């Protein structure tokens, strides 16, 4: 019977200690959650966040690729989900004996120039951009087309010419700000801007206004990019001009897999 007495004593002792500890934890946790203390730490920390003040990573002769911008950067419409960003990385990997790392795809569906300017303030985004030495940027289509919404909703053909004229100047200005900001975040990285194409080239009513607006945009962008060092514009306008149906996905706005592959080939040619 003695061993049972011993078991009882051990159990009582251990469970008494455990109960005490757990009860203290419960009291502490309940108090923290029911009467939260206001914190003393600066919550507007993003400006002086540790990540914002980091130095860009050092050049090591390898490719470190980041894609940033809208749904094209993300790869929407590509059934394999790769988009031009990962396809570019894959093509580079095949061609070159340099090591290729695809860091992040920061593309977000529906992103406009205005939203991207806000996004670039994020310390995490800045960190990723600093880690890269090739930044693929696709932006502007949503400013000009409003995501192709007007067309998809079947609300009739928008008066495109007027809409382009209205949207263009502000958007171009913001594109300039974005390029400057990317440059100041990472002064040494190669920045590749993907030019716009006209997805409505086979729709008679939209073709002309679209073509004009897009070429305007691309010309203005090319002008800005030509002034800056280590930046390229990869044109895509011609790729989708003659036969948009073959290279666009079913939403008639984003490229399909083949379309993305063709863009990626262009990007790689520009990098070599």
């Amino acid at each position, binding site marked *: 019977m003695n061993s049972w007495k011993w*078991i009882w004593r051990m159990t009582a002792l251990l469970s008494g200690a455990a109960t005490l500890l757990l009860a203290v934890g419960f009291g502490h946790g*309940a108090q923290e959650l029911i009467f939260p203390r206001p914190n003393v730490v600066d919550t507007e920390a993003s400006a002086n*966040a540790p990540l914002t003040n980091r130095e860009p990573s050092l050049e090591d002769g390898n490719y470190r690729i980041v894609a940033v911008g809208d749904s094209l950067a993300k790869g929407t419409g590509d059934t394999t989900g790769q988009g031009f960003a990962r396809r570019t990385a894959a093509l580079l990997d095949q061609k070159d004996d340099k090591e290729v790392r695809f860091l992040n795809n920061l593309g977000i569906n529906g992103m406009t120039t205005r939203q991207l300017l806000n996004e670039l303030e994020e310390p995490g985004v800045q*960190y990723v951009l600093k880690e890269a030495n090739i930044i693929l940027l696709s932006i502007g289509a949503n400013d000009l087309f409003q995501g192709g919404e007007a067309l998809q909703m079947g609300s009739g053909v928008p008066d495109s010419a007027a809409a382009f004229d209205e949207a263009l100047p502000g958007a171009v200005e913001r594109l300039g700000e974005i390029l400057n900001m990317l440059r100041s975040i990472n002064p040494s990285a190669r920045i590749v801007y993907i030019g716009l194409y006209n997805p409505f080239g086979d729709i008679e009513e939209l073709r002309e206004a679209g073509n004009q607006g897009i070429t305007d945009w691309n010309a203005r962008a090319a002008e800005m990019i030509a002034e800056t060092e280590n930046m390229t514009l990869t044109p895509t306008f011609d790729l989708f001009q003659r036969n948009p149906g073959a290279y666009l996905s079913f939403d008639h706005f984003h490229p399909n897999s083949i379309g993305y592959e063709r863009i990626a080939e262009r990007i790689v040619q520009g990098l070599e």
Partner: protein
Amino acid sequence: MKRFWAMVQNEVVKIVKKKRFYIILLILAVMVPVFSYAQMRQSLERQESYGSDWRLEVQQAIIDNQNSLSSDRVPQEWKIYRQIFIQQMQYYLDNDVNPNEPGGVTFTREFINNSATLFIPLMTMTIASDLVSSERASGTIKMLLTRPVRRWKVLLSKLVALLMFVSLIVASAYLICYLISGVFFGYSGWTIPIFTGFVLNGSDVDLSYVHATPQWEYLLMQSGLVWFVSTVVALLAFMVSVLVRSTAASIVVMMSALISGSILTNMASAWTSAKYLFMVNLGLTEYLAGNPAPIEGMTLGFSLAVLAAWAAVSVIISFAVFTKRDVLT
């Protein structure tokens, strides 16, 4: 009083003799390595795609969630979860703190977080569910009641023994988890800062209460909340074991209640009066992590009150039934 503790001792020895507690420890000792190994595989795979840089990984998680926010196919309540997740992750990045720093302590925190509503209550149930019903099934209850002791004292001694084992189960879950996962991930990580105090207003996170807590303190608070949940579940299972004649039936009743709870929390957000059910309120640790409550309007205070009310009622019913009921055959 001395006699009462002798009765408790008797109950404790009975529980130990039934070897249920050893089985619980054994289950933990088998399950934890399995989960640890799975977790290790996962982190190895992540390392392949992001290098060893957690910041890239967290930023990608933010972007992926932002993308799903713009999709019409994602239900509204999921979007709220994701918005909150995004803000929390951005806070971690702003402060350059890895939310998933690998280590035995972090693994323990996450493992317990995931098992707080189902796994650990299940463990306490295995002991609670047959405390009274097994005595009835084997007929030993008559021996117990023929002693010159008031019935409520008999039941109370069982209840005290049960509560002792609840504490032991919660404590040993932590201990086993830490000791075993440490083999895989190392034993460090006690002082990593964990952010708590995310106050939720709809889909927005109020960051003015957020503060860093060392992980050991977080574990302490978490263990206390898990202990409270386990105690409530144990008391409910205890009541069922008084009411139901067979141990199997009593386990099934409690099990289905717990499982229906985890199903309901996933789909009951539109049925607001479900928040008065105890099984929806078991996720106390979610409040600590700053995750949104399954039903709008639930807070820690509310959940504690609901759980306490259910526990109190079940204790009253247990005693009322046990002291009144005739014991036949």
